[in-house]
């Protein structure tokens, strides 16, 4: 299972929440920079393996205590690839080829972690790393707008969602807004995922909250601070309580958002506009 966005940006939180509610377990999560959603999946017992380049909430909160707890005890396997290498694994799959050549990771101990092979350039004989394609069974993505045919547009930095969508067998997308196809045709250069790649589309305003969505709302850093303070005090049990409150208790996504409150959402919207406005 691949999760779109990156770190606390455009994380498909409504879809992650649904996954938790369905009490899935034994999943492999592939995401380049893994944030709170990775901790949720660890604590809920949903993820048995995480394929990633980095995991923490962000620099100010240091090394994730949840990561340390689950990985050092061997309960969750953390398969580490470099940021680019993992990006190229998605891109190879998106291109429909079993591997892509790269220079990155050569010489490092990361080569052995995921079993990266080397090969020779058939023209010059130079040594290259061969990044194996990663074809996720399912991709979870969150986008700014999509039309009824599933054509998706993303504003700002696109992260790796376009490659992840092409790489995965089944693609589930939440969107901030559903628009008419006329709107897609008006700005075709903004479309990053063609409709024929998407399997299911769901309207979910604030679908990444408390993570950010470029131009629409900033990540809720105060919320992260409260969350990590609770972990500092009580460890994984704090995350279990958090999941009870935010994932399992609220029946709908609207109820979930109500826990944050309209004022908080509006504030984060204002901050986003300030940062991306003229």
């Amino acid at each position, binding site marked *: 299972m691949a999760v779109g966005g990156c770190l606390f940006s455009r994380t498909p939180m409504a879809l992650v929440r649904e996954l938790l509610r369905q009490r899935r377990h034994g999943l492999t999560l592939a995401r380049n920079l893994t944030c709170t959603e990775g901790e949720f999946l660890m604590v809920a017992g949903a993820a048995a393996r995480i394929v990633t*380049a980095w995991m923490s909430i962000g620099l100010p909160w240091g090394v994730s205590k949840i990561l340390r707890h689950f990985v050092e005890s061997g309960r969750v*396997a953390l398969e580490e690839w470099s940021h680019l290498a993992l990006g190229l694994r998605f891109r190879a799959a998106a291109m429909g080829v079993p591997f892509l050549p790269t220079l990155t990771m050569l010489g490092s101990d990361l080569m052995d972690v995921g079993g990266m092979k080397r090969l020779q350039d058939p023209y010059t004989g130079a040594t290259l790393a061969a990044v194996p394609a990663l074809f996720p069974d399912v991709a979870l993505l969150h986008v700014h707008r999509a039309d009824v045919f599933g054509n998706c547009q993303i504003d700002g930095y696109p*992260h790796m969602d376009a490659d992840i969508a092409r790489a995965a067998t089944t693609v589930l997308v939440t969107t901030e807004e559903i628009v008419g196809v006329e709107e897609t045709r008006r700005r075709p250069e903004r479309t990053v995922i063609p409709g024929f790649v998407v399997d299911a589309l769901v309207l979910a305003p604030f679908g990444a909250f408390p993570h950010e969505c470029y131009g629409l709302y900033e990540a809720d850093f105060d919320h992260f601070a409260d969350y990590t303070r609770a972990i500092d005090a009580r460890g994984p049990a704090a995350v279990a309580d958090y999941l009870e409150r935010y994932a399992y208790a609220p029946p709908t996504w609207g109820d979930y958002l109500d826990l944050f409150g309209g004022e908080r959402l509006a504030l984060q919207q204002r901050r986003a506009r300030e940062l991306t406005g003229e």
Partner: protein
Amino acid sequence: MTDVTASELLAVVAARELRDDTTVFAGVGVPLLAAALARQRHAPRLTLVIEGGIIGPEIAPGRLPISTNEMRAGRRATMLPGITDAFLLAQRGFVDVGFMGGAQIDRHGNVNTSVLGTDYWHPKVRLPGTGGANDIASLCREVIIVTPHERRRFVERVDFVTSPAWLHGDGARRAAGLLFGGVSRVVTTLGILGFDPDSRRMRIDAVHPGVSVATIREHTGFELLEAPRLAVTVPPSEDELAMLRALDPERRFLG
């Protein structure tokens, strides 16, 4: 100098390492802060590349990003190519300098941000991981590391090579298949370290004002060489400090 903190000194000295008209892949934290200072003070045409897939942003004073994937890091960017394509520009040789921190660093400049302990799958301490550090270290024309100088960070041999510099020295980097790059300097809170061009072992190139070679050795877990001519860092100017402090008024990264 008495009113200059170690982080401030580190950021100011690191900023001086960057030249104008270059492309710099900067990690968040002190490296990005120092790059922003360089852009403001002496390198206005320095182009920042950020691993969130962002090119040419203008970091706003008081709004330093805490990650490479957020609106503060993307502010007023000139291009948003996405993560993979930003790194591929480096692989093609377009990025002059990789500018990054490091948790554990060895005498050949290799950095570990993955695991402490010898068994990767059962580590003593699990660190956050490479992120883009391996890619920056592998693909930029030159890498400059910015780090506090602590003995536990400077080790003879890292437990795990997350980001390759000169590997075990000599031609090891080229032999591994990396076409260019390597760590040229390590800027610390005590001095500036370079590498002996033959053995690629770390050496002291400069000491900060008031710091002795002995002090540096004391805070380093392996034997450092010395450059033929040792320099002494010019103290941060009022000008540099004022600009730096204005960039991080909440002292998120200056501590």
